Every structure is written in C-alpha cells, then in structure tokens.
C-alpha cells in the first residue's frame, strides 16, 4: 500500500497541505484531483522526496517514513512523470530507457545491443512498439511519454505519478496511454493521475482523492462521484455554468474576417468571422491545429493561402509586428517563457509592447505618459502588487497572467486572441480574468479564445469552433454550446 497519513506542510506561514491522508493499493488507478493552489503538486513533491513534510508519515509498502530523499524514493519504487518527461533529447529511445539501470548497476561501459534488449523488454511490458534507435527529440510527444513510462518501469516502479498526463495528447494517443496504464495495472503498478480534466479522469480512474486549499475534501471510488460532485469538491462553488457573455446584436460590424486560410501541415481552409463585442471560442484536441491557427493569426507562422482582414482591410501577416499594426493582440500559451520578462519589473512588462506607441522626438520615451498608462492598467486589472517596480516573479500565476493581459490591453487592439488564458491560474483569478475578457468584449473588442478548457469555453463564448485535424469540423452557437455537445464534437 502507498500513500500518506496526516501530512502537513507549510511554506513560510502559508499552509500548503493540512493533515492530508490518502491511500493507493498496487494496481490501483487513482486520480488526485484539484485546481491550481490545491496542494497537489506539493503532495507529489513530498511523495517523491523533493520536499519534506512538517508532520505526518509517508507510507511506502511496509515502511512508514517521516522523510525521504529523491534517490530513496526512486529506489523504493516511486516515480513521477512530469510534463517535460525529463528525457534526454539527443539520445536514443533505447538509451533513455536503459541508461538508468546501467547507472544503477554502476556499469562503466555501454553496450548498445544490451540497451536495446532492455528497452524492448520494457516497452513490451506496456505493449508499445517504438523505433529504439530514434532520437527522443524526433518522436512525437505521446511517444516521449511512453518512453518515460517505460523508463520508470525499467527502474522497478511501483507507484507512478503522472502529472497532467493528457494535456499534450490527441484523442487516439490518450486511448493508447490509457491502455498502457491498464497494462501497468496488470503488472501491479499503482498509477496516480494528477489532473483537473474531469472527463478524462472519469474514464480511466477507479478511485479519486480531491484536494482543495491543502485539505482533502472528498475521496472514494470514482463511481460514487458525478461531474458536479467532483467539481464542487474541487472548487467549492456550485458552478452552474452561467453564461457570462451577453448577446451581441446581429447588425454589429465584423472586425475580423478569416477566409480560407491554409498552412501546410498545420491547418486547411479555415474560415470564420468575429464581430465587435463577440467572443469566439476555438477548441480542439492538441495537434488539431487550434494553436497553429492562433499563432498564424498573430503572424508567428506563415499563412500560405487565403485572406485575413481586420475592419474590412485585408492584411498581410508577416511577423508579430504586422499583426500588431493591424490591431491584433495575442496572449500566448506559455505565460512564463512567451508572455513575461520574469526578472524585469511589472511596469516594464506592462509597457513591453506599447513602448513604440509612446515615442516622442528622436525615439525618446514619453515617460510620464507611459507611466500613467501602466498605472491605469495595473489598477484596472486589479494586479495585486505593492509596487509596480517589483519584478514579475514576485506575482502569483493569476496576477502574472493579468500583467500579460495588461500588456495587450494597453495596445487597444481591435482583436484580442488569447491562448489558454487561465491555464495554471487559481480559481479566484480564473473567474476574474474571464470577467475582464467579457468586459472588454462589452466595450467592443473582438475576442478569440483558444482553449481546451471546455467549462471555460462554455462560460464565456458566444460561438465555438471545433477544430479537427487542421479543419473546422463544427460550429456551435448560443444554446447549442454545452459541455456535452462540445465533448461529443471533440470525440468525433
């Protein structure tokens, strides 16, 4: 049996976990659910030895431990597969799987043939066939994940944590992953899915533990829970999915018109339009092309055919600057690497894009004006900071996302495209950010939200496009936008 008994952990006064107990038996497929800020990643860190609990015990088989080192955790069979998989990109699949045991056995020499054998055996155990000599960077994300699982198996894993495992997978790949997890089950390995994607969780998990604010709010066999119950336990709110977005009059002008755009290998014949004040949701599985469409509309990748016009004028998209001069803004997917300048001040982050709008003679910045603008936006978006000259790293995820939003709102775009705007944001901020987006729409901005967060899309969008393998496969409007109808379209 694996798990914890009464674990508590605090970081400098803030309690991350309070008296958390949960259990998994060998062969269990368990789900650890919770929103951002619930404490689930702290729990994983404690179980894998990266953090030590302040009190309570860690249960690993027969042992009850007060603390653990990462090496001990691996030796006792606990492994975590994070979203980056921790693989070596320039080494082969076989080496990634087999080298870890070579290390354990303290081998000095590496035998490619033996490595291939070891790797093939591990992959066999999960019923997967991969090119053993391919370098890890050349294989798709889903295969990388399988390599990581095979490696864990090779190291004798007994308890496997998978952190947000399905984020980067297509439907087919998710199916494959789930069948692999089932074969892990047969081998007696306990798998814990750490996730907040309720639909997938319900499909594969057998039991569930739900955390909220560091406390276990519910647990038990999955059959005992329906979507609403899980959601309630996770968020504490009775999220009855009230639509946020009020109606848009049909005679409003079209702001963004996309006609038949294609980009080889990314998307094909995509057409849609967005009116002023409208919020268009674009969703689809990863790899469906939804990301690619968003980035292409911002000029990050080339559109090979078709036309894009803003406010009636066709535009040539050649890089982000052309998009911005046409009035398009883009809040990117990865806040930390693409959206923010972490070690720069909040003020600088907010004005990063607008600098060029505030230039006076000889390229000098109009300091007072730009500061006023920054202060306005910091207040408007309720960015919680005592000093806008603090670095962006001092903010929480939700506030960081507001900084990125502020940066784009300061540009007064006609069209604002947001890619995954509430990923990694706590519950409270999530709602507020969506409300900010709705407010901007009410002011006349045309908004496109690309997201795989179905509840969020249902809440906010006037219309929804479902993208499938690079093409628009469905368009839902009004009352047709419900979670079940969207899930049906996605699975089609």
């Amino acid at each position, binding site marked *: 049996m694996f798990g914890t008994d009464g674990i508590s952990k605090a*970081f*400098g*006064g*803030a309690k*991350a976990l309070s008296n958390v107990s949960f259990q998994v038996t060998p062969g269990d497929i368990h789900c650890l659910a919770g929103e*951002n*800020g*619930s*404490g*689930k*990643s*702290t729990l994983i860190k404690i179980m894998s030895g990266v953090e030590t609990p302040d009190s309570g015990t860690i249960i690993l088989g027969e042992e009850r431990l007060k603390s653990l080192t990462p090496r001990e955790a691996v030796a006792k069979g606990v492994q975590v597969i994070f979203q980056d998989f921790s693989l070596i990109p320039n080494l082969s699949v076989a080496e990634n799987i087999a080298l870890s045991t070579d290390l354990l056995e303290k081998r000095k020499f590496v035998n490619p043939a033996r490595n291939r054998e070891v790797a093939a055996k591990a992959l066999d155990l999960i019923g997967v066939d991969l090119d053993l000599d391919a370098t890890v960077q050349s294989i798709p994300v889903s295969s990388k994940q399988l390599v990581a699982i095979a490696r864990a198996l090779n190291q004798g894993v007994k308890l496997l944590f998978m952190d947000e495992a399905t984020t980067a997978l297509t439907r087919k790949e998710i199916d494959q992953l789930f069948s692999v997890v089932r074969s892990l089950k047969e081998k007696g390995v306990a798998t814990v899915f750490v996730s907040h994607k309720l639909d997938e969780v319900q499909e594969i998990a057998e039991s569930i533990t739900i955390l909220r604010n560091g406390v276990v709010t519910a647990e038990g066999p999955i059959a005992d829970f329906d979507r609403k119950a899980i959601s309630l336990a996770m968020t504490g709110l009775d999220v009855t999915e009230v639509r946020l977005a009020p109606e848009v009059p049909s005679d409003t002008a079209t702001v963004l018109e996309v006609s038949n755009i294609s980009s080889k290998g990314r998307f094909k014949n995509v057409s849609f339009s967005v009116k002023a004040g409208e919020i268009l949701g674009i969703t689809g599985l990863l790899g469906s092309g939804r990301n690619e469409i968003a980035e292409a509309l911002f000029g*990050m990748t080339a559109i090979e055919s078709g036309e894009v016009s803003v406010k009636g004028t066709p535009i040539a998209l050649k890089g*982000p*600057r052309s*998009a*911005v001069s046409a009035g398009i803004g*883009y809040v*990117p997917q990865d806040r930390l*690497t*693409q*959206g*923010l*300048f*972490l*070690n*720069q001040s909040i003020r*600088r982050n907010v004005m*990063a*894009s607008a*600098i*060029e709008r*505030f*230039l006076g003679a*000889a*390229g*000098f*910045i109009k*300091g007072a004006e730009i500061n006023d603008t920054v202060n306005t936006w910091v207040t408007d978006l309720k960015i919680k900071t005592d000093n806008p000259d603090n670095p962006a790293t001092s*903010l*929480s*995820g939700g506030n960081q996302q507001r900084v990125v939003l502020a*940066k784009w709102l300061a540009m007064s775009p006609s069209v604002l495209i947001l890619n995954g705007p509430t990923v*990694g*944001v*706590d519950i409270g901020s999530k709602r507020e950010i969506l409300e900010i987006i709705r407010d901007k729409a009410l002011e006349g901005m045309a908004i496109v939200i690309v997201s795989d967060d179905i509840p969020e899309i249902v809440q906010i969008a006037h219309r929804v496009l479902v993208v499938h393998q690079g093409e628009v496969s469905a368009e839902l409007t009004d009352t047709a936008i419900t979670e079940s109808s969207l899930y049906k379209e996605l699975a089609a």
Partner: protein
Amino acid sequence: MKDISRDLTRRLLSDRKLTQLIVVALIVFLAFSILVPDLFLTPRNFVSMAFQIPEIALLALGVMLAMLTAGIDLSVVSMSNLAALSTAYLLVTQVTDGGGNVYLWIVIAIVIGIVVGLISGLANGAIIAGVGVTPILATLATLTLYNGIAVGIRNGQSIIGLPPEFTAIGNGSFLGIPIPMIILLVAGAGVALYINKTGLGMQSVLVGANQEAATYSAIGVKKVLLMTYTLSGGLSALAGLIIASRSASANPDYGSSYVLLAIVIVVLGGVNPYGGFGTVTGVILATAVLQMVSSGFNALRFSQFFYQLAQGFVLIAVMILNTYVDKRRMRAKKDKAPKES
C-alpha cells in the same frame, strides 16, 4: 542643486551592486595610497589615469550593450583598430604641413573612422540577427576578419606621424578635464540615455531578459540587435580614435589583451552576462577601479603579466561572488509561500 545631488545619491545607494562597487573602489584606492603613496597619490598619476580610462571604458560600454541583449561582442578591439587605421591613413596621406585645411581633414578623417566602426558593427549585427550565428562565434570570427583587414591594408605595419592638430585632442584638456574624458562622459551619457529613455534601448533590455517573450510582444528583435552591435561598433571606433590621437599612431594589433579587460570591467560593473541588466555608471566606475589597479601595480613594479593574472582573478572572483549572492537570495525566496501548487 541640492535636490539633484540628493536624488543622485539616493539613486546610487539604492542600487546594491553599485554600492558594492563604490566600496571596492574605495578599498582599492586606500590600499594603493597606503602602499605606494608617493607614486600613486600624485596629481600626475590621476591625470594620467584620467587620460587612460576613456578608451577602455568606451570599449567596455560596447561590450555592455551587447551583453544587455544577452549577447557578447568580442570584436570591439579589432573594430577599434580598424577605425583608427582608417582615420590615420586619411590623415597621413591628406594632411600636408601647416595647410589651412588641416582641421577640415581631421573632421573628415574622424567621421570616416566612426563610419568604419559603425559599418563593422552593423556587419556584426547582420551576422547575428540576420544569419542567426550565436554572438560568441560571430564576434570571434569577425574579430579575426577585422584584424586581418587591418593587417592587410597596411601590410601589417602601423601608421605613425599623425598631425599634431589631431594628437592635441587625445592629449589636451579643456577646463582642466582631459578631452578624452569629456568624450567619454558625453558618450556615456548618450548610452545611458539610450538604455533608459529610448524605445530601442528599453527594448534591448527586454530582448536580453527574454528574447522569445520579446518576439511575442511584437518587439523588432532583429532591429534591436542590429542597433546594439552597430552602436558597439561606433563606441569602439571612438575608442580607437582616442587611442590613435593619444599615441599619434595606429596599430592593427594594438590592445589584444583589452578584450579580457573589457569583460572584467563589464562584469565588475554589475552587468548581467545573461542579459537584462547593466548600468553606464557601473561600467565607468569599474574601469576606474581597474585603472587604479593597473597604475598601482605599475607603481609597485608588478609586470603587465601580473596585471593580466589579476584581471582573470578578479573576473572569476566577481562571478563567484555574484553566484553566491544570487543563490542566497533564491533560497530566501523559496522559504516564502509558493505561488501556485
């Protein structure tokens, strides 16, 4: 007047790195004053330092600009020599004794020198931003190329015998301040203004902080890099002209040890080699510190090789210190509440 000085003092002291540097400067000053007062604490020595600081500080400012964008410019010395040679060549061939148009030719020669610097810097920028070669490799290659061109056009020989009207610039003073120092202060102020008050300047800091985010923020990264390296070329040319003026000669291989010195200065001056932070004040102050060390060593009869040893040592010591200070700051942050878990 009082307000300005109070403001300046407050700003200087609020920057922790700058405070540390001031402390270091004071320590170095005191150390050499105590050890060799009769050679170090003379007005002559300080005037001599005031003449020598500008050329190196200008080179260091060029490197700083590149480092702000998370890059580096190793070709500053070669660009400086090339510019110096161009100016010297023009002066030596066009200026005949005592002709009335000496000053005209000096102006033209100076302009040509600066243009040579700007063009070589622009070429660096094009290779880095346009072709996409990493700054280390690109400027290592151009350093050889520019040096090679400087050697080739004069068959390896130096140019000597520059007209006294020109050398007066490098060796003269105005209102008691050496002219090269005035040039440095003006150029330094210009660079500071560029970084803090112009659009491109602020964008270069952002590019250095996170190039990907800069692209996603619709910042013209290529434009910024081109400007950065062009300016570095211009600053190097200024340095070269001052060198030529002071020594009345231009030499294709002058100052080969200055690259290490420039980087020591830049790191000591608080510039972050990973990009995103640096101040002109820090760089100039750091140059002064190293110049004091050089003159102090001279007074103590240490060889120039020992000076090189000291430079390497200082560079490494400062980097280690920075690493430890950062590590301690990171640890302090970790103990506070994590943002999301």
